[in-house]
């Protein structure tokens, strides 16, 4: 144990789990309140990944209960996902930097860190192991484990392992752990998180039971977004290290041309040819013959060539306009919704898609500035809204151009899908202001806002016509009375005549307005 060392400047190495044990606030486990919230998130997100990525409509159950003493909280999360191969379970839950998500596609977890941090935090605060029951789809058995971590060696410790024959068709994973946490303080966050998760997964049944709360979200669609595929890197997205590795793991006998076509996103024969010509590179050269400086040159050329195709969306899984609408409707119950899913775009070679929803009226309260719901790869972002690029875009937009005058019942939903979401930190709570992303969010919101404007204009015009009749009608008796006094003519007669003229005028205008509506 190093803390007891009295030697000056003793050099030594640290295991990753040890590092994160010492710096757990990096991953959001800074205090019992935050840790409880973070644990729920990590478990729910794993469950969603285990279902959605495989086109299984998720059934997620989350049960939180308070133990004795009351700062011990038990968390159980169950899903109907693909399950975990039983031989992998100890490592998946007991080793930092071990997992299945280190590939180029959109998923909720990417750092392979969250669930281990939850295990680690539970272990150091309560000393209790994590309990897992899982079965894969084709497996004939159900595995049950109790696992702890050997933090200094970054290895799992299996406390117990049971395997029994599966009688039902059940597949999925149930995880239960007991951790230190403050339910009272974390409650609002957790509820908010689950509500927002339900918004972005209209096809999921979510059941949540806490010590003093129960939330049930039934799916309002069985349609699911297409799961993402694993992609190849885009030439703009690589660096020297990556290029060097790509060259190394390939058959070093292949030619430069074949290498480019085989290893990179969207590079066909034509593009490969054009690039090599433009870059004055010999496409027939074998990889093994490239010198270090030639590799550096290749990289520079690849990064400055303007002829590559944009990255494709294969590896992304946006919700799509229909599903996003469903999600918004089920949580916000608005009067009007418009959703926009943009085409794929990219920054630094990473493909991304922006989806936006605008929800108006209904149960949305009047607010001075739009309510914002942010999502990244279907993860709701709760903290740090102030520094998120989406907030900045929303605040920058001149809403009056779209006939929105605050206070107004307006909510904006922004969903960013990317193989690499440009977060502002490991907290995964705010998206950084990358120019390309900012532009796409802005375009998406503006596109949606144009539809909103059309809707509001229509509503407004219909109202204006009725309002005109009301306004003028109410003055008719007054005008008739005054004219009667001045001229001695009958008041009723004057009033009748005036009403007659008004009717005629309204008929004419109503026709004209009708034309405009059909534009």
């Amino acid at each position, binding site marked *: 144990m190093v803390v007891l060392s009295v030697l000056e400047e003793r050099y030594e190495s640290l295991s990753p789990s040890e590092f994160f044990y010492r710096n757990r606030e990096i991953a959001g486990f800074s205090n019992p309140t935050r840790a409880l919230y973070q644990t729920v998130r990590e478990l729910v997100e794993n469950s969603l990944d285990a279902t959605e990525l495989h086109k299984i409509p998720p059934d997620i159950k989350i049960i939180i209960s308070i133990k004795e003493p009351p700062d011990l909280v038990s968390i159980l999360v169950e899903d109907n996902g693909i399950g975990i191969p039983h031989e992998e379970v100890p490592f998946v839950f007991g080793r930092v930097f071990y997992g299945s998500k280190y590939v180029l596609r959109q998923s909720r977890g990417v750092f392979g860190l969250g669930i281990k941090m939850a295990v680690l935090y539970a272990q150091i605060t309560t000393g209790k192991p994590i309990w897992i029951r899982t079965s894969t789809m084709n497996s004939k058995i159900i595995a049950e484990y109790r696992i702890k971590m050997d933090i200094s060696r970054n290895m799992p410790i299996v406390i117990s392992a049971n395997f029994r024959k599966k009688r039902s068709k059940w597949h999925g994973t149930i995880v239960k752990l007991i951790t230190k946490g403050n339910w009272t303080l974390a409650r609002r966050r957790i509820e908010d998180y689950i509500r927002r998760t339900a918004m972005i997964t209209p096809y999921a049944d979510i059941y949540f039971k806490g010590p003093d709360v129960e939330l049930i979200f039934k799916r309002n669609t069985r349609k699911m977004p297409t799961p993402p595929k694993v992609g190849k890197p885009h030439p703009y997205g690589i660096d020297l290290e990556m290029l060097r590795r790509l060259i190394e793991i390939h058959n070093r006998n292949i030619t430069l041309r074949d290498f480019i076509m085989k290893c990179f996103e969207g590079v066909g024969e034509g593009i490969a040819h054009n690039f090599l010509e433009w870059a004055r590179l010999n496409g027939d050269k074998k990889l093994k013959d490239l010198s270090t400086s030639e590799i550096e040159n290749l990289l520079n050329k690849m990064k400055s060539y303007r002829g590559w195709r944009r990255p494709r969306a294969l590896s992304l899984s946006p919700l799509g306009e229909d599903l996003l609408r469903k999600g918004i409707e089920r949580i916000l119950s608005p009067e009007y919704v418009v959703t926009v899913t943009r085409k794929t775009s990219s920054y630094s070679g990473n493909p991304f898609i922006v989806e936006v929803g605008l929800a108006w009226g209904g149960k949305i309260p009047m607010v001075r500035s739009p309510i914002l719901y942010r999502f990244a790869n279907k993860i709701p972002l709760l903290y740090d809204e102030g520094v998120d690029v989406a907030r900045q875009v929303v605040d920058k937009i001149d809403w009056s151009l779209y006939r929105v005058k605050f206070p107004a019942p307006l909510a904006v939903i922004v969903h960013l899908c990317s193989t690499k979401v440009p977060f502002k930190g490991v907290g995964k709570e705010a998206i950084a202001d990358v120019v390309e992303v900012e532009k796409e969010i802005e375009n998406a919101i503006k596109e949606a806002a144009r539809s909103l404007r059309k809707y509001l204009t229509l509503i407004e015009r219909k109202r204006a016509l009725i309002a005109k009749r009301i306004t003028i009608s109410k003055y008719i008796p007054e005008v008739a009375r005054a004219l009667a006094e*001045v001229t001695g003519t009958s008041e009723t007669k004057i009033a009748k005549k005036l009403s007659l003229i008004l009717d005629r005028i309204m008929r004419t205008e109503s026709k004209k307005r009708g034309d405009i509506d059909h534009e």
Partner: protein
Amino acid sequence: MSSKTNTTRNDVLKHLEEIGKRILEDIGKERPPKLKIRVRSLSNTVWCPEEKILKLGPRCAVREFFNLRETRKFMQTVLMLSLIVRARREGDYPTIRDLYYMGKHTIEYKDLHGKLRRENTWETQDESDYIIQDIEVLTNLLREDMGIMFDAKGRMVGKVIIRSKGNTIDLSKMGVGAFAIPPNVGDIDIVDVDADYVLIVEKGAIFERLNNEEFWKKHNCVLMTGKGQPDRGTRRMAKRISEEFDLPVYILTDSDPFGFYIYSVYKYGSISLSYESERLAVTRAKFLGVSTSDIYRYKIPRKFIIKATDRDIRRARELLRYPWFQSKIWKEELSLFIKKREKVEIEAFSGFGFKYLSDKYIPEKIEREEFID
């Protein structure tokens, strides 16, 4: 005696009723009723170089009952018309505030959402006053002629004999007091004036001081004040004395754009009431002072000079754009003001001693003809 009331009560009434009839005619023929009223904005206030007064231009606005933006004003106009007709019929002298109350009704109606709402025919007196002005323009009658009263501020004193309601009044025999000018100057006959000129001072306190010193007796003039922006009674009285007895009128104000503008209101009329200039403008009025150049001519000490505010400067720039401030001398004065950004009050002369104003400044300016016409 052009500006004396020459419309009898009956004439006025007929004239007003005629307007009502014209509106009714349109309605009878199922035509949307409308009123053509000359626009009372600055842009339709024209400077008439021949008569040297401000007049309303020819531009008219059509007030249509079935136009959403005009409907409320149309209603208010016919309402006010009926009130004035009623007062004339009954021989009453309402104030503009009386008319406001007389006409204020509550209209009930249901709004877009079927909710019962209330609206008053007018909310504030600003609204009803605006309509009174519209009716003055529409009928070409002044409010005084329609028997409408208002708060009058003017005071005068001097060798003037007037007759009103059978009384003969000698305005040189008011002691330390003065004659209070009423709103309806048209109901006064000016019998005789024995004076060389009329001196109008902007400020009431200066009037009292000069009256106490019997300035008007020593200098054989008529002394008047309108206390700041003059009311219509004061203006009409000044115009009548000047025109009926062929006397020049000298106006003494503070040296600032508001003082200059007060002078111009006496002489040419005001922008907001330009439609009545013909009957109110004192064309023989001259600006005696205090001019901006007086500040330097009379070497007024720095401590009495007040820094002009941005508002003053904006006002001076506005004056420079008015056609009636286009004489060489006014342009110079206003440019000097804008350049120096300095103003003074009449009382600043007290820095030279209490009697400087009455013994030196006023007589000297008149004698040397150092006024602006």
